[in-house]
């Protein structure tokens, strides 16, 4: 049988071994920084893409209205008219693609919440409560000094903290691994569909913009009064603003989506192994920042 004199050191040794093992199971500061940077960029890409789709829909409605005002009935039945002002950016289309972009943003926010240490303060408060409670137990009060009670509180806090960190790493690793194919797929879809000149979003904007440019040009050249030409000028201005979105925003969404896919691979390596490079995650952060900055300049609030 083991006596109390040998049992205590053994327990202490086991606890020490457990602590060392748990310490090795936590995300390093560098890994957390990588996840944090990726999360922030994913949130930016998702949120900005989603809001820009809504802006494109609003622009479509406005441009179709202008074209109808300038030229009357649509010259082709496949183009938008007074019963389909949002032709090309109908609610169901925008909602589906915007929902996918928002899912990317939500992924970024979920990862950020997971690596963000909101538990330390909670653990500290909880262990203080525990020590206070132990101090109120007469037997414990008699046998344990204040210093020993304090040591128990610190141990509970540290073990709890290490357990949290090990679970954090496990959760982040699992989620990054499981989400990887879906994130890759969404990046591919955004890169394909927003590509300037080839993606359907860019083509759709062109279908709305070019006929309006033609009708505005006709009114501008044939208009007999200042007011007529002014109406044409306002339409041209509207197209110009929307074209800026087509050329600048679409390119940046595409670049950011391509960069995100690479960063997603780097992220998976970052959380699973010690040998990884932050280069692709950094590149994604730069593209996401560029997108945000461009939207700030282009979009008139």
């Amino acid at each position, binding site marked *: 049988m083991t006596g109390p004199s040998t049992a205590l050191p053994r327990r202490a040794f086991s606890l020490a071994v457990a602590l060392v093992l748990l310490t090795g199971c936590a995300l390093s500061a560098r890994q957390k920084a990588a996840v944090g940077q990726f999360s922030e960029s994913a949130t930016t890409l998702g949120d900005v893409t989603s809001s820009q789709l809504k802006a494109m829909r609003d622009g479509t409605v406005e441009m179709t209205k202008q074209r109808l005002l300038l030229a009357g009935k*649509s010259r*082709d*039945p*496949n*183009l938008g008219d007074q019963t389909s002002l949002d032709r*090309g950016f109908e609610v169901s289309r925008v909602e*589906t*693609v915007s*929902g*996918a972009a928002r*899912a*990317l943003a*939500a*992924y970024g926010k*979920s*990862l950020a*919440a*997971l690596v963000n240490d*909101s*538990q330390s303060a909670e*653990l500290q*408060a*909880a*262990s203080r*409560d*525990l020590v*206070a*409670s*132990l101090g*109120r*137990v*007469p*037997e414990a009060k008699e046998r344990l000094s204040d210093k020993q009670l304090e040591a128990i509180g610190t141990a509970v806090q540290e073990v709890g903290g290490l*357990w*949290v960190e090990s*679970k954090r790493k496990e*959760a982040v690793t*699992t*989620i990054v691994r*499981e*989400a990887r*194919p*879906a*994130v890759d*797929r*969404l990046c591919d*879809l955004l890169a394909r*569909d927003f590509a300037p*000149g*080839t993606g*359907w979003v860019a*083509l759709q904007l*062109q*279908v709305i913009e*070019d*006929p309006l440019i033609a*009708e505005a*040009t*006709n009114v501008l*050249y044939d208009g007999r009064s200042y007011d007529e030409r002014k109406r044409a000028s306002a339409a041209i201005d509207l197209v110009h603003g929307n074209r800026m979105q087509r050329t600048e925003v679409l390119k940046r969404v595409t670049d950011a989506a391509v960069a995100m896919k690479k960063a997603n691979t780097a992220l998976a390596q970052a959380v699973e192994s010690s040998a990884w490079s932050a280069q692709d995650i950094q590149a994604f952060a730069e593209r996401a920042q560029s997108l945000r900055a461009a939207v700030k300049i282009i979009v008139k609030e």
Partner: protein
Amino acid sequence: MATTLGEELSASLTNITALIVKAKTKSQRTRLTRQQAQIAGQLQVFIDKTVDEALSEYRAASTALSAANAEAEKAKRDLDRVAATIKKFAAAIDQLAALAAKVAAA
């Protein structure tokens, strides 16, 4: 260089729009504007077909990612529960202490 039907129609649309702006007579513009509308209409039909296929791809990928997001939120709740468990333990000790005091007083 244009390679797909969509890209070819897009290039035609770009070219015809440029011609409308540069046209010298009203009749030229009228004819070109009519042709432009037809090309834009054809491009719209092409886009409609493309988008129909794309939307189902978006839905599938979004559903898969939403499942991962739900898992991440659950994992976060589990992490937050550690402190709550310690607090519950402290409350249980308080109750035991109160019970012990009652027993001692009886």
